[in-house]
């Protein structure tokens, strides 16, 4: 059942928030042991909250657009009184004293948090294997990864444990797992959704967004979490569009740009075939396909890894064993410096250390211009590519990932192979543009395949209209794993 169906059934008296909550908690109990999608399940809290919502409905009080919808939050979003670990040993047992704005807003809209989901430590990874709590498994094939870093949220939605979850996306961390798990994942325009209470990875790239089965549900959640927040200095005051009204199904004359030259190398044949068919589906509904070129898109991965690691090395300096998080056992003669260094080495996992070190190096004296500044300049060239293209098209289409879900352990020993999975997704983070992944087919082995649409800055209305129109003509999003 989708989020909007759940709210509708509760409001019409067909069911109650408590009954819906109990059903989903039962499903979690049955399926979670196979998937490890959750770091924490907040069953009691959820039932209390559902009872309160049913009470509000009986009393005739005002009810939110997500009334009674069970939701899960990626475990890098702070939830007051509920442990938040970023799947890192360094934050084991951390209980935030406040909630992220997205959590407050979803709860105010009537959503019921049932738990916190697994991720690659501090959102650094593409497979959820970099979690200190162990990997999450893909509901379509338990031997494969759900993608990452929001792999727990994607697996929880794909397996029907929740109809809706939030993830964060720094280089593809919502869209890539959505594609690999056969669901919808939206990364809004940078600045649209408050990052207050999101544990920072790379501040100029991080953005929170929804994962759901339908574009309509993703739009509903985005409507609730989007909009200005004075607690985030990078939060935009650009007015939010009326999204339900924007989903008209009409894409006649919509111009869809396809960067053919960028789709060549390394893309799986089944992915390419599903993508081509998706373009034909859009064209059959009245969209116009346009050949475009993005000459700098191929440099996205190196630019991304230089900028994201530089920002991460600075953001993760706060984990020093003083105010919160893991502190090493102090011996008699240990200095403060030893405490910092040993606490951090014990608390961080290998990928996090690799990225902190790479970021530290590229920002250090003598290397700044050659690496970091150069990457920032190429970031400008990439933005110019998209600015030029958006003068003549309304959305840009690519596959979301070059291949369907890969096997657990397949890429863990080779960081670069893992990074290359994000080739189609990093551009949206570097440019700030909104992008969405939609289910568009299956491989021969019945693994989901995703298509990605990218829109203009702050034009989620057009992006979601195109995505919703596509779902009106396809049924891939109705398929579930066995």
């Amino acid at each position, binding site marked *: 059942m989708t989020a909007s169906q759940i709210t509708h059934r509760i409001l019409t008296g067909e069911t109650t928030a408590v009954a819906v909550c109990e059903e989903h908690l039962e499903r979690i109990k049955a399926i979670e042991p196979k998937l490890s999608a959750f770091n924490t399940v907040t069953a009691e809290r959820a039932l209390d909250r559902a009872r309160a919502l049913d009470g509000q409905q009986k009393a005739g009080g005002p009810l939110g657009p997500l009334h009674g919808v069970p939701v899960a939050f990626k475990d890098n979003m702070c939830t007051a009184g509920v442990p938040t670990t970023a799947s890192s040993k360094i934050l084991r047992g951390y209980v935030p004293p406040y909630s992220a704005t997205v959590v407050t807003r979803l709860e105010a809209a009537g959503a019921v948090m049932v738990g916190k989901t697994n991720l690659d430590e501090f959102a650094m990874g593409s497979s959820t294997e970099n979690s200190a709590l162990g990997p999450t498994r893909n509901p379509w094939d338990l031997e494969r990864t759900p993608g990452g870093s929001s792999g727990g949220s994607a697996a929880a939605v794909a397996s029907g444990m929740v109809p809706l979850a939030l993830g964060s996306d720094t280089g593809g961390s919502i869209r890539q797992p959505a594609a690999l798990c056969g669901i919808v994942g939206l990364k809004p325009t940078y600045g649209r959704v408050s990052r207050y209470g999101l544990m920072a990875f790379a501040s*100029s790239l991080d953005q929170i967004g929804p994962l759901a089965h339908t574009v309509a549900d993703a739009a509903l959640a985005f409507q609730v979490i989007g909009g200005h927040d004075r607690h985030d200095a990078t939060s935009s005051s650009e007015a939010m569009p009326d999204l339900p009204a924007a989903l008209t199904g009409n894409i006649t004359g919509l111009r869809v740009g396809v960067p053919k030259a960028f789709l060549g190398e390394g893309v799986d044949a089944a992915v390419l075939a599903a993508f081509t068919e998706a373009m034909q589906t859009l064209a059959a509904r009245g969209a116009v396909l346009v050949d475009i070129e993005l000459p700098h898109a191929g440099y996205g991965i*190196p630019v991304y890894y230089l900028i994201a690691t530089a920002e991460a090395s600075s953001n993760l300096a706060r984990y020093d064993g*003083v105010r919160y998080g893991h502190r090493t056992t102090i011996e008699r003669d240990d*200095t403060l410096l*030893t405490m910092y*260094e040993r606490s951090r080495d014990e608390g961080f996992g290998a990928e996090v250390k690799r990225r902190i070190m790479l970021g530290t190096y590229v920002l*250090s004296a003598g290397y700044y211009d050659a*690496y970091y500044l150069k990457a*920032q300049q*190429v970031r400008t060239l990439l933005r110019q590519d998209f600015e030029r293209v958006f003068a003549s098209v309304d959305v840009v289409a690519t596959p979301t990932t070059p291949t369907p879900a890969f096997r657990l352990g397949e890429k863990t020993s080779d960081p670069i192979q893992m990074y290359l999975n994000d080739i189609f997704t990093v551009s949206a983070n570097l440019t700030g543009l909104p992008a969405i992944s939609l289910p568009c087919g299956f491989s021969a082995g019945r693994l989901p395949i995703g298509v990605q649409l990218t829109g203009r800055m702050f034009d989620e209305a057009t992006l979601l209209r195109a995505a919703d129109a596509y779902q009106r003509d396809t049924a891939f999003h109705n398929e579930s794993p066995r």
Partner: protein
Amino acid sequence: MSTLTQKDVKRIAELARLELTADELDLFTRQLGGILTYVEQIRALDTTGVPPTSHVLNRPVDRDDVLEPSLTRDELLANAPDAAREAGLFKVPRVI
């Protein structure tokens, strides 16, 4: 082709406040060298006169600097590995 020595990696780890084990030093020297060689492909691009992008939102978002309720001292100390809660202080090893 970038070559990083163990000495380089040790220096980076010091700057990053990470006390690496010998195994980590080996592994990271190899992997960071590989990653740097990979990212160096951007050096082939001519970026003369191209302004850097540090952030995609060009307008700064200012607000008035007014006092408002924030977390209490007790709430902030609640997660500390070691604290003198009565005095309201975080505790660390002796510095002086």
